[in-house]
């Protein structure tokens, strides 16, 4: 029979901390490949349950496998499947067992292991990984519960700490500052100068933040048009930028121009027409698109890339300060999961042990006369019951879940329960 205690939980992966991009690129899986991989792992009996988590920064295999299965076998499978040299794969892999594998997944789900500390995208990816594995019929109780617990733990960390509150990217910091001036941005007009990479990145961010009136000006109008088509904005001819200023609450400079595109006088004029309502300038261009003198105009806010990068590093420190609180929450959730995992295996172990003792008893009772057999059976049961009582009580009372798992494993080994 296969019970949980003879199986072990294992994580084998290649992530940005241990593996180079060249390796990571080749072990990155599409959704279809994840299903194919899971079929391969289950088909070869390498795991009895499996989930593959594949994101831009990590590919990790979570498996419940037999004790004698090793990480090397899993690595060999990946190596053959993806056509990668085994030594290279082994060298750059990360392996975690048992409680450590659980903790690793919880930390990943909470964004603690992410490149951008505390990011939330990975939580959805963890959920997606479980979904794919379920569709492939690769999960049962243990991994299903593991991934659901990981998602719950990740959610708790997001809700109870500020690890995801302070933005890290320059565009999102820009949006946050603008929100603190105007409040809701959905009724505001945002004018983006330049439809290049930075311009389209910011424009996308603004739309995600709820901006509905997005205007994009570019020297080549067709590029602006192509961008606004995707984002439901308005393209503005380059010559009309000055005319657009009075209507713009937020102006974002992202052009490659060598001289400022927006002069102080233009902003002063715009301000007069706006009757002094605040204007917010983000200069994401190097060299600057917006005359620095704009900062001294009443009710004009001006930020350059450097300013926002300072905020970004401050926010990184703020997020880092939340890590201990996040880890404490994960400890609690880890304890819950491991205790469930432990209980799962104590009951079948006790049953197996009782059956074992009954076999021995019955062997000894063979050949005795019937009336004596009854007496000795009662006698033997009484001794067995008393002998087992204390160890079983202690086993059930053990509160350190990972230690409980160890002890269940020890009992199975010492009483040879797995040979049946």
């Amino acid at each position, binding site marked *: 029979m296969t019970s949980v205690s003879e199986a072990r939980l294992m994580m084998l992966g290649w992530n940005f901390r241990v593996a180079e991009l060249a390796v990571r690129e080749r072990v990155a899986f599409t959704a279809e490949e994840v299903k194919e991989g899971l079929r391969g792992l289950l088909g070869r009996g390498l795991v009895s349950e499996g989930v593959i988590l594949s994101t831009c920064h990590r590919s990790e295999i979570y498996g419940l496998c037999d004790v004698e299965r090793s990480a090397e076998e899993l690595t060999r499978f990946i190596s053959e499947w993806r056509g990668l040299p085994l030594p290279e794969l082994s060298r750059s892999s990360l392996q975690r067992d048992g409680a450590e594998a659980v903790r690793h997944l919880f930390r990943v789900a909470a964004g603690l292991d992410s490149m951008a500390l505390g990011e939330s995208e990975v939580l959805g990816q963890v959920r997606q990984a479980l979904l794919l594995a379920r569709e492939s019929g690769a999960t049962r109780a243990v991994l299903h519960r593991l991934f659901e617990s990981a998602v719950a733990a990740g959610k708790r960390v*997001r*809700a*109870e*700490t*500020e690890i*995801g*509150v*302070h933005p890290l990217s320059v565009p999102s*910091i820009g949006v*946050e*500052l603008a*929100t*603190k*001036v*105007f*409040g809701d941005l959905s009724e505001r007009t945002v004018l983006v100068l330049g439809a290049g990479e930075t311009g389209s990145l910011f424009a996308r961010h603004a739309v995600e933040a709820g901006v509905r009136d997005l205007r994009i000006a570019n020297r080549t109008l067709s590029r602006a048009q192509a961008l606004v088509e995707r984002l439901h904005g308005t393209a503005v001819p380059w010559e009309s930028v000055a005319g657009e200023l009075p209507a713009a609450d937020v102006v974002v400079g992202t052009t490659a121009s060598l001289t400022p595109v927006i002069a102080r006088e233009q902003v002063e004029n715009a*301000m*007069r027409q*706006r*009757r*002094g*309502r*605040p204007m917010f300038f983000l200069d994401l261009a190097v060299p600057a698109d917006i005359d620095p003198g704009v900062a001294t105009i*009443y*009710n004009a*806010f001006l*930020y350059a890339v450097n*300013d*926002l990068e*300072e*905020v970004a590093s*401050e*926010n990184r420190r703020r997020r880092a300060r939340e890590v201990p609180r996040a880890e404490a929450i994960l400890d609690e959730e880890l304890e819950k999961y491991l205790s469930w995992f432990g209980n799962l295996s104590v009951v079948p172990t006790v049953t197996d042990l009782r059956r074992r003792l009954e076999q021995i008893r019955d062997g000894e009772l063979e050949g005795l006369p019937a009336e004596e057999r009854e007496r000795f059976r009662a006698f033997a049961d009484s001794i067995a019951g008393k002998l087992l009582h204390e160890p079983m009580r202690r086993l059930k009372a053990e509160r350190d879940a990972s230690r409980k798992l160890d002890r269940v494993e020890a009992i199975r080994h010492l009483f040879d329960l797995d040979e049946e």
Partner: protein
Amino acid sequence: MEWHPLGWLAVLCYLGAEALAIVSMRRPRPSTGWPGALLLAGGLALQFADLRLEARALGSVPYRTLGGSVSLFAWMLAIAYLGLQIRHRQQALGPFLIPIVIGSSMIGLLLPFRGSAPTPETRGTLFALHVTFAILAYAAFTFSFVLSLLYLIQNRQIRRRKTGVLFARLPALEVIGQMNRTSVSVGLAVLTVALLFGGVWALRVWGDLTDPKIVWAVLTLLVYAFLLWMDRRGWEGPRVALLSILGFGVVLFSYTVVNLYFSHTHTFR
């Protein structure tokens, strides 16, 4: 000193609302604030009941004693805060504004309530309306003062890119500015009504309008009216906030110095 069980219960309600507001502020995602609003409304009802008991005993609105007038002021503050919270659906400023309600409620309860019986001319409805409206106007101006301070603080945080706790917890400049606009508009309208009632009463009783307190009240009116005008003329923002602080200075001056040294009729004795 009298014991005001209802008044102190009201203070407890306000404390509860403040606690909820602080808890909500400390959460990454603030809650809707309905429990807090209900507690505030409960406090308002209790404080009203307490003031009504006092009014019965005195035979008039309790504005003649220091305790009574401060309690009335506290009650008006609570009304003004609840109005602001409902109007702007903002409870982020609760932690800063509710303590003013709590503080003035407690001061009112600790100061002597019972005073001399009202003189015949201060018994009428006209006089009571004048005082009640004037106190509501001062409550609105008090909030305008605090909102302006918070505006200047948030403005400074944004300009200096200090994106810390205060930055995160205080609402957007636009929101604080709008709340300030509401406070000043309400204060201005109510003070005008109070002055009209007061003026009619003064003409009837004194026969003239030369009391220094009246002059200062008109000055207050002018400062805040100028502020609203400026707000529409392109000075919205820190300048309006500064002017609102100046306006409150005038209010304080008329409430204290003018009352104590210049006016012989506008006192709380």
